[in-house]
């Protein structure tokens, strides 16, 4: 499995003011709170057996969760939360065939409290499979979907509470906050470019020349492009927001105006491209262009911006490139 490994080490001799408290409230906290609301609404909708409404709410949940994921710094604030996202989302992180497993569970009679013992069985990916391929009027399916939605809500609440508990660690230690945020953005961009676009379009090293729409993150519900847009919007919140001091402001303050403007340019270019895309476009020239834009965005983050701001990036692509 191809993987990028990134560590950001702060050079303490170069003082960088971090993003401010407003960023933490308006981005980090806001996004997690929205996703909690979505998860709660889905539970209520599933309980009522409303398939269409549940599907619509699922789209909103995906949108907000992708934003939380793109700027996820909680594991750096408290290592106990390093693994929490994988309890919500197993995209590209699990070799299990959960569809087959879920089919077996649906057709069996085992008590769901232990039939759904695997964390992967209660993720957003499992919920997508049930909401978009199964019949919610089936009591067992509905019960399973409800367990999934509640589990997702549970872990989202854990994340929300932990962010609140670690607010001071983020807002008071500016250098640390800057480092972990940039690290999250770089990691997110790599996953976006390589897994969410490249693997689908047949442009990643792993799947070079072998495009396959089934590798898209939300292939079942056809929400993969929307998820990509949400991720890019989270980056926009982090580096090019008008409502709060963001990472872009910090970059300009410390002389990286050219670098951050370039980064924002690539980001805006990618957003503009995604806004005109449909799911199937991931497989054509539009997908290729988006792959290039997100690649430039990643390069811009970790090659120029990190260095200019006084971070040392150490990047190793396991495949050697």
């Amino acid at each position, binding site marked *: *499995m*191809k*993987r990028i*490994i*990134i*560590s950001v080490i702060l050079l303490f001799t170069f003082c960088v003011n971090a993003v401010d408290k407003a960023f933490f409230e308006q981005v980090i906290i806001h996004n997690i709170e929205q996703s909690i609301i979505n998860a709660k609404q889905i539970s209520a909708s599933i309980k009522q057996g409303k398939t269409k409404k549940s599907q619509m709410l699922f789209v909103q949940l995906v949108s907000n969760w992708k934003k939380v994921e793109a700027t996820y710094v909680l594991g750096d604030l408290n*290592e*106990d939360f*390093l*693994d929490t996202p*994988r309890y919500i989302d197993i995209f*590209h*992180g*699990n*070799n*299990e065939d959960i569809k087959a497993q879920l089919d*077996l569970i649906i057709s069996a009679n*085992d008590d769901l409290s*232990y*039939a759904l*013992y*695997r*964390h*992967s069985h209660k993720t957003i990916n499992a919920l997508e499979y049930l909401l978009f391929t199964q019949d919610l009027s089936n009591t067992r399916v509905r019960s399973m979907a409800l367990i999934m939605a509640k589990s997702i809500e549970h872990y989202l609440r854990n994340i929300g509470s932990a962010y609140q508990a670690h607010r001071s660690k983020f807002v008071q230690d500016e250098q640390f906050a800057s480092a972990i945020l940039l690290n999250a953005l770089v990691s997110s961009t790599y996953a976006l470019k390589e897994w969410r676009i490249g693997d689908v379009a047949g442009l990643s090293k792993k799947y070079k020349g072998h495009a396959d729409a089934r590798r898209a993150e939300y292939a079942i519900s056809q929400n993969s492009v929307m998820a990509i847009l949400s991720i890019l919007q989270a980056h926009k919140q982090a580096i090019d927001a008008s409502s709060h001091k963001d990472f872009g402001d910090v970059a300009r303050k410390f002389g990286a105006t050219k670098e951050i403007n370039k980064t924002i340019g690539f980001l805006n270019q990618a957003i503009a491209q995604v806004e005109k895309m449909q799911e199937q476009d991931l497989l054509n020239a539009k997908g290729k262009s988006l792959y290039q834009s997100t690649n430039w965005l990643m390069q811009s983050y970790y090659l120029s911006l990190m260095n200019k701001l006084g971070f040392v990036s*150490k*990047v*190793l*692509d*396991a*495949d*050697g490139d």
Partner: protein
Amino acid sequence: MRTQKKIIISSVLTMAMVASTAQAFFGGKNEVLTAYADIAIASYTDALNDAKSMQVAIKDFTKNPTTMMMENAKASWLNARESYGQTEAFRLSNGPIDAEEGWHTVYGAPEGQLNAWPLDENMVDYTMDAKGKKTSGNIIDAKGAFTPSGEKSKTVNVSNITPDVLAALNENGGDANVATGYHAIEFLLWGQDQDYANFIKDGITTGALIAGQRTVADYTTAKNADRRKQYLNAASALIVSDLESMVVAWGKGDNSNYRAALLGNNTSDKNIDEKTALSQIFSGLGVFIKSELANERIAVAVLTPSEEDEHSCFSDNTHRDIAQNYQGFKNILFGTYNGIDYGVAPIDALKDKSKLMALIKSADAKVNKINALAQISRHFDYQIRPNDPQAKQIKKLKNELRAIGDQMINVAKANGINLSVGDVTDGEETQL
């Protein structure tokens, strides 16, 4: 395959090695390598001797298959794992145990043959599947030709189960097609422990302190009893011969072997550049503790959760695997083995040891707790259950071991070697 991770020496590392400026430590480095090599031969000699004892116990059991003799064979397997587990820290360092290229592959790079896992036990012998049906179509019940599942697998004549036959079957057609090594023997002695339908249900061998319960009848009255005996003897013979090759590679007094090359004493122009040797060792230690032990052997099991991803899932000996793998890592880091000081250790050059020692102290406590509970309360496969409070501690242990792996960058630097995070991380580790 988890047991055959490629050690990736990146261009970053190569450049770092060239750029290293710590020439002042030149004399000390040889002593680090000497201690490393001395611990290696001591460790592999113990592993070989224990494997030989296991081979004898298995032979005795197959000659006289009683319940008591079966328990003796199991005890010998458990004992053999104690010493072998410590040798695993020598992996992933481009050494003779698993080097994928170089002249020292002449030692057979036998790691995949010794300790491959997880294995598809259905290929070896019968199991009870998820629907409660006894499986067939395995090596034991095959008549004549046997073709493992998977793409491009090759048919092997298994009329007689010999070391060569098992070697030909191992990983034939796929990484999970494991036919040799400790875990194949483990399965043939203990049998299935996991409930494939749902490991939480634990309906095959019910109980928190209950491992696999293969009966001695499989070696007496059951169909194919003699083939199981053949299999056990062939597999144990392979382990012994593979470990003998490691003892040859690391043996003292041989100016043509791997040890001599590592220490610059090889007279056949095969000497390994000192900095290259140190880089590979520090990188290997980091990858082993971070990606292999923490990620593949602990994280995958506890985060899934999954019994089939615990290391010794038939005997429920995973707690000892973790303890001894970790001990093997510490042996090299501290330059000690079985309480004996082997000289200059990698950690000696590290000026500020506080962070690393704090991590080790904390990890020690968690490893000990896993062991203690496995003996009196519940095995590892119960400790990883989602609602067990130990699951959280095991996750913390995983994080600490990964942090210890990253600390190898500092240890390496103190010894004049520059490594990056990528150098102490397996780029192909399972994503979680």
